[in-house]
């Protein structure tokens, strides 16, 4: 599988990547959880990180975002090295983060939640465009953020990042615990964002969902990227993937 990775990497590197993660290591306190993550994402691509629970996918996103306090290696975004930067500086470069737990604030209304992240780059979606994308939110503007349903909270969590003008979005398990009809709506949203040129790094357990939106898949195992599969090769690689994911 290392060979497969080596063969495919030059193709990915042909257009210079928007995000390049090299030898990324990370720790939670004393516990060493990332052991050398390598992957890259080209502009306009949707890339997933697949892997079992605890493989280090969420931690990888946190390390890119600068939330993981202790990290080493190299993360370059748009030609800039992020490894030494605090989270707020990384956000200001145009990296948007949608956390797994959604991060909707209970003491803020839906409107306030939506308006909270400052605009970091020009060209973000307007509030009206966000409401066109997620019509449910419009009727709930004055509600307390956490009074929304799980699906609405996920939409709010994605929507507020689209306002900021961030061109790359780190999306952590957006479909977790949601009804199929909501999952479908979020899938359509991601497809639309991809058409509009957003670059998305998606952590996903829902394999079928991942396959429906992504260009490429990186497999994470025990804090390392062990394989890369193009979406069009997915059918041919089913067996291999099942072995990785233990399904």
């Amino acid at each position, binding site marked *: 599988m290392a060979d497969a990775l080596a063969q495919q990497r030059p193709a990915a590197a042909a257009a210079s990547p928007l995000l390049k993660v090299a030898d990324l290591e990370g720790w939670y306190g004393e516990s060493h959880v990332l052991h050398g993550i390598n992957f890259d994402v080209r502009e306009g691509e949707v890339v997933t990180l697949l892997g079992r629970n605890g493989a280090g996918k969420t931690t990888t996103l946190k390390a890119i975002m600068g939330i993981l306090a202790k990290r080493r290696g190299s993360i370059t975004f748009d030609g800039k090295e992020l490894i030494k930067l605090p989270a*707020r500086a990384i*956000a*200001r470069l145009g990296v948007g983060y949608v956390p797994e737990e959604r991060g909707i604030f209970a*003491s803020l209304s839906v409107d306030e939640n939506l308006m*909270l992240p400052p605009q970091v780059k020009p060209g973000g979606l307007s509030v009206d465009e966000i409401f066109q994308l997620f019509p449910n939110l419009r009727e709930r503007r004055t509600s307390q953020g956490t009074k929304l349903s799980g699906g609405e909270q996920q939409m709010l969590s994605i929507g507020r990042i689209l306002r900021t003008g961030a061109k790359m979005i780190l999306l952590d398990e957006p479909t977790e615990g949601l009804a199929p009809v909501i999952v479908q709506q979020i899938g359509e949203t991601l497809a639309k964002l991809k058409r509009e040129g957003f670059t998305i790094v998606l952590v996903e357990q829902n394999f079928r969902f991942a396959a429906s939106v992504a260009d490429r898949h990186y497999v994470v195992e025990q804090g390392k990227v062990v394989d890369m599969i193009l979406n069009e090769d997915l059918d041919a690689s089913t067996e291999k993937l099942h072995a990785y994911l233990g399904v």
Partner: protein
Amino acid sequence: MFELLGIPPQALFGQLLLGLINGSFYAILSLGLAVIFGLLNIINFTHGAQYMLGAFVAWFLLQYLGIGYWWALIIAPIAVGITGVILERLMISKLYHLDHLYGLLLTFGIALVIQGLLRNEFGISGLPYSIPPQLAGGQNLGFMFLPNYRGWVVVASLVVCLATWFVIEKTRLGAYLRAATENPTLVGAFGINVPRLVTLTYGFGVALAAFAGVLAAPIYSVNPNMGAELIIVVFAVVVIGGMGSILGAIITGFGLGIIEGLTRVFYPEGSSVVIFVIMAIVLLIKPAGLFGRAA
């Protein structure tokens, strides 16, 4: 001359007014504590000393620079607020990764140092600070005599408390503050400078204390111990209202001042302990405080 429940109205309203005055100070001070605790998770034991510093700065301004009350009302909170910013940057911020207890010990120690230094220099007999001439005298309301300055203290406190409430609950800046109180990591990941927000919030809470100190200067004499005496009651107010609740701090502050005043009318012996009795009862029945959200 009418009487209410056997109490002459002058005595009743006089004590009610006194209660309202005390309540004004309770409200501003517990509001500052609540704002600071909400975001910093630190129980700011320096608060009483910072209130006292506000009064001292007003006195210094008048004594050495000839700057009067109205300017002091603006300058003292800013000056003391800046000392708060420096204190937070240099010392308090080093303790955020530790247990709350360390912040409490540090701020308590700093309060003792500030009070000790000023006590050494000025003694404890108190320095006079006169009421500004515009607010001298009073109004005869028929049922009682209202000194103008005391009326002003109540109005000014209410305005400052409500303005603070408005900023925190209704503005963009307040939304940052509330969000950072809930989840500072995520707010930082949106590109907001949370450490700076924390520093400014501490400075603002301290400035509120100093503002109360200037208001207090003409009523109580300017004394190094004035904060230490008051702050114990204010902590009881904060416990009753619930740590971290903005509106709770304001309502509880004024409410308990009034209750204290009424107690002084109907059962004077109980007036100095009534707030602590209420605190004990609240702790037993609703430990998070009347307006507190259970953790």
